[in-house]
């Protein structure tokens, strides 16, 4: 589409946006009020959502990109990015897919039909995920569970969205969250009613064939009183995206006695050995333990992206509420990760656990950054943090930045940190017992990550282990 036509569209009344040719894949680069009107119109959003987006946009204009993380990358030109892309056209067959990606699918043991779905190939009727999804959603509906895209939720459940969106991550929380609030493409919405235990793992897997959520994903999960949900985000299959900048926002709300398990496997394109082409991943994830005895658990296995800036956090507001963070982050090639968590203790007897495992290989740089804050009201609160780093080779690095703030005398904070190397002696010991070198490395790494992997739902853990092996293949020696 020519610039002229675009100008015409975005300068005209935004409803005209619907006339855009359906074959068009992308909005023209650049970010302005008109871009946001364009996105909102494309998504058929109500006026109130557009107003919120515009508010976020104006706030974002006044904000500055954070520079405190231990990552370096060239300046991002926000006017050169395209902020809206239509769902991609399906490919004809797997033969059109990058062989490197196919090889990875094979190593990860992903069934053929699933490979097609992941790679964006048109799938056979047998694996029609629409029917899978329908059965699945029907079962959830019987229980009153809402599981849909955030765009649908904005249209169909405006009261819930208005009440909770921006309630945990305010639109002006930080530069990237504000950007996401203005231009978010799509994402997931989950609502679990009072007293309902969601009977299955909710996973974005069921939305594989749904439209490409794009680079500005937004997720909102609400667990009402006494409910339980386990949500799995991402998958081990390698993801490539021509959009280099990703800035997602995830908000979780756990009411009284509710428990949310949020697991992530992230394998975005990490770039080449010099980091070229890798995804920039600037994510804001935060959970609010609103009610007493509520619990939020973040578990993540991060192997992808060239730059990662991510701190899944918990605000422990309800008395006796619990926040947990279990993380494995691998950096190799020229990847840089600055990741960790924030545990904000407000309620009485709140507890938090942080287990962070960083693995660095080749030229990877891995930083743990964590804040534990005890408010005056958090009497009897407890935190335990453990940050371990494993180095493979001698060109990589590991860094730990723990921040502890306590205004409460009766609160206890315990922090442990270790850095170790996969030693020649450990490898040799296993090889002397007849175990091949790559299997020996895998065994040592799995052992190192055990405390985190054991927190993942079983099938997800199997995927994560296979992903660790694939990621570290050839990283040793």
């Amino acid at each position, binding site marked *: 589409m020519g610039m002229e036509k675009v100008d015409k569209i975005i300068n005209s009344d935004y409803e005209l946006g619907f006339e855009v040719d359906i074959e068009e894949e992308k909005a023209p680069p650049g970010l302005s009020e008109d871009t946001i009107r364009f996105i909102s119109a494309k998504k058929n959003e109500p006026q109130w959502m557009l107003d919120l987006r515009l508010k976020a946009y104006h706030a974002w204009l006044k904000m500055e990109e954070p520079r405190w993380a231990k990552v370096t990358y060239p300046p991002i030109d926000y006017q050169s990015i395209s902020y809206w892309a239509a769902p991609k056209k399906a490919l004809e067959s797997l033969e059109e897919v990058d062989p490197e990606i196919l090889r990875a699918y094979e190593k990860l043991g992903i069934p053929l039909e699933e490979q097609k779905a992941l790679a964006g190939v048109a799938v056979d009727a047998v694996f029609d995920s629409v029917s899978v999804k329908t059965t699945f959603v029907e079962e959830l509906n019987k229980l009153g569970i809402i599981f849909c895209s955030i765009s649908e939720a904005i249209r169909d459940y405006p009261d819930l969205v208005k009440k909770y969106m921006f309630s945990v991550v305010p639109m002006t929380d930080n530069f990237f969250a504000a950007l996401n609030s203005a231009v978010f493409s799509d994402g997931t919405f989950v609502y679990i009613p009072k007293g309902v235990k969601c009977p299955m793992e909710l996973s974005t897997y069921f939305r594989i064939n749904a439209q490409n959520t794009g680079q500005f994903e937004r997720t909102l999960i609400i667990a009402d009183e006494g409910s339980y949900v386990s949500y799995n985000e991402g998958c081990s299959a390698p993801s490539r995206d021509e959009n280099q900048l990703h800035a997602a926002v995830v908000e979780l709300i756990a009411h009284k006695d509710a428990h949310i398990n949020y697991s992530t496997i992230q394998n975005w394109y990490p770039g080449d050995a010099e980091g070229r082409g890798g995804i920039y991943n600037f994510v804001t994830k935060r959970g609010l333990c609103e009610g007493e005895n509520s619990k939020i658990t973040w578990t993540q296995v991060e192997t992808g992206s060239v730059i990662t800036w991510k701190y899944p956090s918990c605000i422990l507001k309800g008395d006796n509420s619990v926040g947990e963070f279990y993380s494995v982050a691998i950096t190799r090639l020229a990847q840089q990760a600055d990741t960790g968590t924030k545990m904000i203790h407000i309620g009485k007897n709140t507890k938090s656990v942080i287990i962070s495992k960083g693995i660095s290989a080749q030229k990877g740089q891995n930083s743990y950054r964590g804040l534990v804050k005890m408010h005056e009201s958090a009497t009897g609160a407890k935190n335990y943090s453990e940050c371990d780093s494993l180095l493979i080779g001698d060109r990589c690095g590991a860094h730990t930045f723990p921040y502890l703030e306590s205004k409460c005398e009766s609160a206890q904070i315990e922090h442990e940190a270790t850095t170790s190397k996969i030693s020649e002696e450990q490898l*040799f010991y296993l090889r002397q017992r007849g175990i091949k070198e790559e299997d020996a490395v895998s065994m040592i790494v799995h052992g*190192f990550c*055990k405390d985190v992997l054991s927190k993942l739902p079983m099938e997800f853990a199997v995927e994560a282990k296979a992903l660790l092996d694939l990621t570290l293949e050839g990283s040793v020696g």
Partner: protein
Amino acid sequence: MSTMMKIKDLHAQIGDKQILKGIDLELLKGKVHAIMGPNGAGKSTLSKAIVGHPDVEVTKGTIVYKDKDITDWEPEERALEGIFMAFQHPVEIPGVNNAYFLRTALNAKRKHLGLPPLNAAEFLRLLKEKIKELGMREEMIHRSLNEGFSGGEKKLNEILQMEILEPDFVILDEIDSGLDIDALKKVSEAINKMRTPDRTFMIITHYRKILDYIEPDFVHVLKNGKVLKTGGIEIVDALEKEGYKIFEEV
């Protein structure tokens, strides 16, 4: 008597330091060979050269095992062919379950031999039988490999691995160091039970004590990177009295 391993004119270095300067040694099937010698004689380097430790670079000479020249083989290939070393200082590997590790090692070996792998239940039965024989505490097999084990427990765990893997050529690198007399007896008994006409042992030690429990067929004295003397147990008696200097001018 047939030869298990023949080491010929072996020269090896660690870093820039030449340590083995022409070792000639023949190790026989079904026999126990004790290797003695002062610190720095090259005992550890010799055992590392046999198992293919990456620190040791063989610059000259050959190691022939079961009629195959293994001088350039990968460590795991040697292990699968039946070479086993009980380490002097077994390394700790956090998070790696001891039983899981052992089953992986055993099944790697079974695969090499063309045998089907043992499943978890079959393996556990075998393992429990072995640890009972060794008088080990059962909970040790469920702990991380060597992590938090006492010195004695680590050595017993090496012996356990030997019993499970049933190697043909066993190097015991100062297995007696750090063991009290009861533990030494226990370890020696286990080793004696493993003595068969098909299995060769190479015991590296500084002390006579272990050789009272495990009687060697041959004693070799190493000094300055060479084999200085080969004989029977009588050599140990002479060493006890006079020290290593008695062999120097031979």
